[in-house]
């Protein structure tokens, strides 16, 4: 029972990070219909920027977090505005997908060349003490990550539901053509989505860097956000959250009870969902303008 609670906390914390990354993938997809495969590498770059801020510029963890979120937002927007949107305008989505693969490789190499191959440990992190809840012991970082992820998700929901720009983004997600006819600028929506996705990448980057270390190899975790987004329903924010948490819990309990499957459990789940319910758990069957 105690172990089950510990697996639950562990799974929710890991799932919280996956959810943030999945939200990023989903937001970009919602606004432009593109699966931007390079997005996981923005998470990686954010973790490295946070390291530089803490280790070289000497700023504290939280300020480094703010800077890495701003930088990740800028990278995400610049990528979208300067490369992906112009390619998408030609009407060939396959070209944009291939371009995102190119960006993935370039970002990864930038991480390697600029910061080197060694793992970089943050001089400050979210704490490394164990916390006792009842008779179970959990890492304090897990609780921080759950809290920060939850806060980010609530803030995003408020933005999407309570602001005109958020409403415009939801309208574009539902029907891009109709929203354009209503005077909503698709470019503005795409840029806002890219910015928010970048914020999620920045948050995920500093959380992963704190939990493990900053490294050019962190993009591999970012790519699991695709599995989470697909499982929940690509393009659906609630789906991304559900998918992220499901992947985190599946990995946590899978490691405990079926360790031989744990490494690939996210991808196995994704394939199973695609076969049984292609639109994902909370996704809708298709956009009206598809």
């Amino acid at each position, binding site marked *: 029972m105690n172990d089950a609670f510990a697996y639950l906390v*562990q799974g929710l*914390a890991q799932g919280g990070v996956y959810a943030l990354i999945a939200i990023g993938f989903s937001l970009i997809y919602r606004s432009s219909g593109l699966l931007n495969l390079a997005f996981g590498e923005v998470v990686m770059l954010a973790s490295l920027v946070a390291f530089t801020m803490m280790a070289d510029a000497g700023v504290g963890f939280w300020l480094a977090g703010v800077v890495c979120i701003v930088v990740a937002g800028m990278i995400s927007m610049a990528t979208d505005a300067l490369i992906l949107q112009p390619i998408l305008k030609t009407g060939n989505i396959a070209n944009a997908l291939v371009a995102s693969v190119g960006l993935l490789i370039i970002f990864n190499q930038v991480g390697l060349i600029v910061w080197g191959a060694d*793992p970089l440990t943050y001089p400050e992190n979210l704490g490394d*003490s164990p916390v*006792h809840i009842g008779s179970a012991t959990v890492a304090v*970082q897990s609780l921080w990550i759950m809290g920060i992820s939850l806060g980010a998700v609530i803030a995003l929901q408020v933005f999407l539901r309570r602001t005109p720009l958020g409403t415009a983004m939801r309208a574009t997600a539902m029907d891009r053509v109709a929203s354009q006819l209503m005077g909503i600028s698709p470019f503005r929506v795409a840029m806002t989505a890219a910015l928010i996705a970048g914020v999620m990448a920045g948050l995920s980057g500093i959380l992963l860097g704190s*939990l493990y270390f900053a490294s050019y190899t962190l993009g*591999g975790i970012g790519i699991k956000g695709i599995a989470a987004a697909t499982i929940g329903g690509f393009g659906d924010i609630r789906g991304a959250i559900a998918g992220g948490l499901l992947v985190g819990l599946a990995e946590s309990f899978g490691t405990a009870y079926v360790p031989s499957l744990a490494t690939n459990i996210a991808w196995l789940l994704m394939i199973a969902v695609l076969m049984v319910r292609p639109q994902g758990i909370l996704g809708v069957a298709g956009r009206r303008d598809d």
Partner: protein
Amino acid sequence: MKTRRTLAAVVATALAISLSACGTGGGSSGDELKIGYIGGASGFSAAFGVPTRDGVEAAVKAVNADGGVLGRKIKLVIADDKGDPTASQTAMRRLASDGVQLAISGSSSAASLAHQSVAAQNQVLVISPIGSDPAIIENQEGTPWYLVNVPSNTIFGATMAEQAKKSGTINSVAVFDRDDAYGNTITAGFVDKAKEVGLKVTGVRTYAIDKKDFGSDLISALGAEPDALFLSGYAEDSGLIAKQARAAGFTGTILGTSPMTSPQYIEVAGEKGANQSYISTASALLVQSNASEEQLEFVASWTKENGQAPNDYQLAAYDSLMAMVQAIEKADSTDAAKVRDALLKTEFTGVSGPVGFDDDGASRRPVYVVEYLDGMWQEPKY
């Protein structure tokens, strides 16, 4: 007809020149003797590939400053295998085609196993201070082309199990098994010896080499309340396990093997995570009481030049190049087969400790156990 005769003469002359070049042995470039270095300068293998290259470069510099070997300066030809077995085969082919017949390898065991056959096919004599997988020696039939200057993984794992039992405070151990050639053989050596000496293994958790989150594995492993964790991985993954184990409340001992003597282990695990780690290593120098006066002098001079003390990889790499040089001098030739025969009879005390090889190419270096406690490596207190 005259043209054809002239062409034949040119071809014959070129053939004669190339055959005579082959006969000199040990790739040469003018008066220089080419010695190859193959290893990872990027990726996870950089943790040992880069320091191994540093050690070889330092040894080459020392030999050349002393007049070279057989009157020739050494030219180091470097091939980066990125820690990737396939890239490693290509890198070894490149060295061979570049005329290298003598080489030092800083590649991982997996990469060494991949490029070992390429080296043998091209009759490139290799000394590896890194490739501790027992299969590297077991794979060789007849006279070896691949010699290792590091004890085998089986010995590293078994020594740690033996010493854990001897401590009297460790009766049960949970094992984290890195799922590759290196980790699996270290684990096998540890588990087999643990059974033999009556040390309880509460469970073996095998993990993928790129795994970063061990939270759930630790909940399972620590549920059995082991006295110690045995980690069969490299510095990076072992550091993560140690860090996350302490964050999950584990206060027992952490056991591991030589990659964990890398500063990267302490960097990733943090001081709190790495504290109370017992490591089996071939380096005598981590604990000064194991080291000779000459070794300490070398460390002082290295530290002065580089700003920090040499690690196990740098020392073993330095000695590997020096072993090659001693064998060349003993054989009075740079021919790879003659150097190998001399190398198998070479024994000396180097900067890493005693260096010597069995007839099958296995290392005769002893294994020490050291403890990381209160910010420094020291003799275990048990």
